């Protein structure tokens, strides 16, 4: 390797570093460390609140204990919103994703445009649009469908989810080698059969990790709905702080909510990484 003999650009030998430190032990240790760290910060914030708070009134622990069930209920509402927006967004996104690989330009272009638009718009702005542009009820002849705020919020959050699912589906389909299409075509499968029987079953497992990743992001983003006045976990936490008027409780109170999200989303993230490794694909 005479790299010094020329002033032209040369390809230097490259060796990828070993995947350190080893096997499963390291990620497990890291995980345990992370969880312990979060718990420690929470305990510390509680201790600070306890020691700086007025001595004559309820202890920080008591107050936190009093509000925890309500905050947890609010958090469960966040989860409900996340399930429903994910379901709606996935259903719409799969159609758009398949539309994006359609041979018909009349399908492909609008699917592509909608995907790009909603994928590159801020989630909160989309949420505002859904809240203020959707009517509060929809009259379909004799039937009147009510649109309460929480349903509008689900639709608002489902928009960017659908756009991201659309990209995940498109990428999954595109990642299947063209030889699969070719051999299916030459066995006289029509396009729909090829898609549903040969391409999608193979693409499916490659879509799962990024889809789960998106779900975790959506779950955390559901706290945006508190901005548009829906009683979610964040709204309840804020209301509790206002009711108690104990500024030193701000840190532990929000951390309590944060811990709930962390406890829910972190395992999803770990599972995503495990599946990615197992399927050997990149999220």
């Amino acid at each position, binding site marked *: 390797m005479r790299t010094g003999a020329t002033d032209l650009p040369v390809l230097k030998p490259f060796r990828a570093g070993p995947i350190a430190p080893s096997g499963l032990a390291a990620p497990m240790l890291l995980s345990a460390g992370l969880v312990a760290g979060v718990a420690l910060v929470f305990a510390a914030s509680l201790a600070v609140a306890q020691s700086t708070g007025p001595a004559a009134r309820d202890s920080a622990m008591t107050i936190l204990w009093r509000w925890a069930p309500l905050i947890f209920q609010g958090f469960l509402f966040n989860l409900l919103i996340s399930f429903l927006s994910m379901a709606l967004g996935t259903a719409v996104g799969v159609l758009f994703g398949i539309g994006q690989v359609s041979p018909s330009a009349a399908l492909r272009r609008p699917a592509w445009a909608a995907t790009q638009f909603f994928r590159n718009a801020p989630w909160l702005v989309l949420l505002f649009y859904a809240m203020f542009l959707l009517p509060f009820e929809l009259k379909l002849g004799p039937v009147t469908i009510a649109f309460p705020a929480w349903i509008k919020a689900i639709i608002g959050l489902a928009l960017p989810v659908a756009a991201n699912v659309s990209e995940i589906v498109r990428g999954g389909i595109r990642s299947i*080698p063209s*030889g*699969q299409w*070719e*051999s*299916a*075509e*030459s*066995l*006289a*499968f*029509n396009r729909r*059969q090829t898609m549903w*029987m*040969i391409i999608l*079953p*193979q693409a499916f497992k490659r879509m799962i990790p990024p889809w789960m990743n998106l779900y975790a992001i959506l779950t955390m983003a559901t706290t945006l709905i508190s901005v548009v006045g829906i009683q979610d976990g964040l709204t309840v936490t804020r209301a509790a702080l206002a009711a108690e008027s104990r500024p030193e409780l701000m840190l532990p109170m929000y951390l309590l909510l944060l811990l709930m999200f962390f406890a829910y989303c972190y395992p999803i993230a770990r599972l995503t990484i495990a599946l990615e490794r197992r399927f050997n694909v990149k999220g």
Partner: protein
Amino acid sequence: MAAKHQLGEPVVVVEGVEKAFGAFPVLKDVSLTIRRGETVCIIGPSGSGKSTLLRCINALVPIGKGSITVAGRQVNDPALDKLALRRDVGIVFQQYNLFPHKTALQNVMMAPIHVLKQDRGEVEERAKQLLAKVGLSHKHDAYPGELSGGQQQRVAIARSLAMNPKVMLFDEVTAALDPETKKEVLVAIRDLAAEGMTCILVTHEMGFAREVADRVYFTDGGVIVEHAPPAEFFGAPREARTRAFLDQVL
């Protein structure tokens, strides 16, 4: 060696076919006729348009000029029923292209069940016979990932045969295989040719071409330089270009 069986009427007729990818011509005025029961090998250097020709025959690639007729069906007709054509033409690829999420048996059974809408029981019976024919009776439930290259390629052959095609196309089917597994695939193709299947092979296997082919075509630069029965082709090639090529590879 040739003429092991009676040759029938022309099955594949290619006349004056031209094909270009963008400005780059890959086929220039190519004509050939293959009769029922005939085995034809197409040889030539890489990039001479051999694989493209095969893909034109089953309408995977559209042609620019000329005409192709397969079993009485006009391939270059804009109103062509491509799926009907492909039911008559089997093709086996260099990279096998088995469906990795299905077992060997399922790979063979899928198209007859879903495309030809045949009865599952009968299809399974025939699929098992076909796998036995290519020597893979013991691998029904293996997934492609669990099979060697040669085994996968033999499943691919069985999968194409399950459609009862009138013509079989083989696109450098042994190019990705090591010498040992190559042989098992070539034996399967030889048996097929001996049974009277019409076969068109794009191949670099000169020994196989000499032994099995009824005729050998030599292509270079998108044109057919010459064609002849194998004894004559390998023994006394007429064109200088053919001689140069054979000197290189033999």
